[in-house]
């Protein structure tokens, strides 16, 4: 076994030993498309970056990776805990509980809000989703160097896996939020039907952000330290715990809040579920971010993908 096949052509020309049997074998092995003797396949340039189109098509073909892998990771995450998978539900509940205690009871920021618990839980849960996606994606490349160096595949699948995983983990939290909204006396209205559109816009924004931080995180691991502070700042600027309309008097300043993508997401979601007022600028901001961010993220990520493995 060891040294058979070592004969053909020691010189420059390696082989003219095409036989029908080998062609058939090649076909069954799933390689050498068109080894039907005659057709000469043109050589493709191996060093150029694939066009965005081919790249995306290739990534889409392998999309199962970005679904199965995070699902496995999520399952593994709480395996050694007593509550196990319940943590995906308990964790956001505790999170909201703490905020309610601090900002609803101790420091009263309830001004101008009818249903503060519902208001708070929608804000906290949605904000938390983007935060988790971003933090997770910022290390998605660096944590998978082994995979990157072993297998050639579209790297976009790694941040995509972070987005999918965290979004899946968010589903119980969303269910909890909706239950809480119902339990605090809200009734479903036609506005609720708009919520999926808001969530899709947030998903698009998250995806773009994930690509951007995944790229930055590879050359600047410091990002991991900076992000939590950035999110804390965003948190207070998003009106998660207070109503911006009630606290901010100047219309110009309120308009500035519309530039904050998370404020846009949360405000629109509250409009859907709680009937809180929404400014047209906020809606425009959400639409803008959900288009702009994926474009920026993809451009930055794709541009330097070749360097990621080196």
């Amino acid at each position: 076994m060891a040294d058979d096949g070592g004969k053909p052509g020691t010189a420059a020309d390696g082989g003219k030993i095409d036989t029908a049997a080998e062609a058939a074998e090649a076909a069954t092995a799933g390689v050498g498309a068109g080894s039907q003797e005659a057709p000469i396949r043109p050589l493709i340039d191996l060093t150029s970056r694939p066009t965005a189109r081919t790249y995306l098509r290739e990534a889409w073909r392998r999309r199962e990776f970005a679904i199965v892998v995070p699902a496995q990771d999520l399952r593994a995450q709480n395996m050694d805990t007593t509550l196990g998978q319940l943590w995906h539900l308990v964790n956001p509940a505790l999170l909201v509980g703490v905020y309610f205690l601090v900002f609803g009871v101790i420091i009263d920021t309830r001004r101008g809000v009818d249903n503060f618990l519902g208001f708070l839980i929608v804000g906290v849960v949605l904000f938390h989703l983007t935060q988790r996606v971003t933090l997770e994606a910022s290390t998605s490349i660096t944590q998978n160097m082994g995979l990157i160096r072993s297998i050639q595949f579209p790297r976009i699948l790694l941040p995509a896996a972070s987005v999918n995983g965290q979004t899946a983990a968010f589903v119980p939290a969303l269910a909890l939020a909706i239950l809480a909204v119902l339990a605090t006396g809200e009734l479903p209205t036609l506005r609720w039907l708009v919520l999926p559109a808001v969530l899709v816009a947030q998903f698009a924004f998250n995806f773009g952000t994930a690509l951007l931080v995944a790229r930055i995180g590879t050359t600047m691991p410091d990002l991991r330290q900076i992000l939590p502070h950035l999110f804390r700042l965003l948190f207070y600027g998003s009106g998660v715990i207070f109503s911006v309309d009630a606290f901010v008097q100047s219309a110009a300043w309120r308009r500035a809040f519309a530039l904050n993508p998370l404020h846009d997401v949360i405000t629109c979601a509250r409009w859907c579920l709680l009937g809180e007022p929404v400014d047209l600028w906020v809606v425009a901001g959400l639409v803008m971010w959900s288009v702009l961010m994926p474009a920026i993220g993809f451009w930055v990520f794709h541009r330097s993908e070749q360097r990621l493995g080196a």
Partner: protein
Amino acid sequence: MSDPAVTVEVRDAHVSYRVFEEPAMGLKQGFARGRMRRQYRMIPAVQGVTLDLHEHETLGLIGPNGAGKSTLLAAMTGLLPLRSGSIRGRSRPSLLGVSSVLRPALSGRRNILIGGLALGFTRAEVERRMDEIIDFAGLRADIDRPMRTYSSGMRARLRFAIATARIPEILLIDEALTVGDEEFRRLAAERIDDVRSASGSVVLVTHNMNEIRRFCDRVVWLDEGRVRAVGDPADIVDCYLAAPSPNSR
């Protein structure tokens, strides 16, 4: 028009890579220089290599450390951009390197799934080939243990089994056989033959001259990023071993 039997065609390829200055620049120097971009130097690693790879061929790539062997392979897979020249091929080669493990905390079985999906299999396809891959890797008894508990030989076998689960048309092997035992080498030889008999080509980078003699039809000797000699394995290996290179092998 080139020879129809050519699977990969490298023409006057130049590859340089960046080496960042160590340690990473701190804030103080950053302010002093007025810019935060890390300083780096371009190291010319491959300087004008031209070669053809043919159907049914196993090509050995030898040379001292730093000769540009691994860089050339990385460029062939598209991992590193060329500074000039061209590399064209029938399809994108699969590179099998010495990197550590895919996901150390997960079991071998999970790693097969993850690696298989990254390679473009569907989940169902991976499940279908699972047993075959496990058997090829010879890890039947250990497949459900975390991969970090594996010996380096076991890791090498598993990686090899995953990477060649779909017989690639062009397979590049960078020192990936060195860690295995005799049994592994026998399996690797089998896979290399599979690739070749399917009109494919294999490039083998190694410092082990027995591997070169055993597997290769032709050898390219790289030195300082240039081709120093091409030819029959026995001849080239003899010359290489006799060469008074300070850090060869």
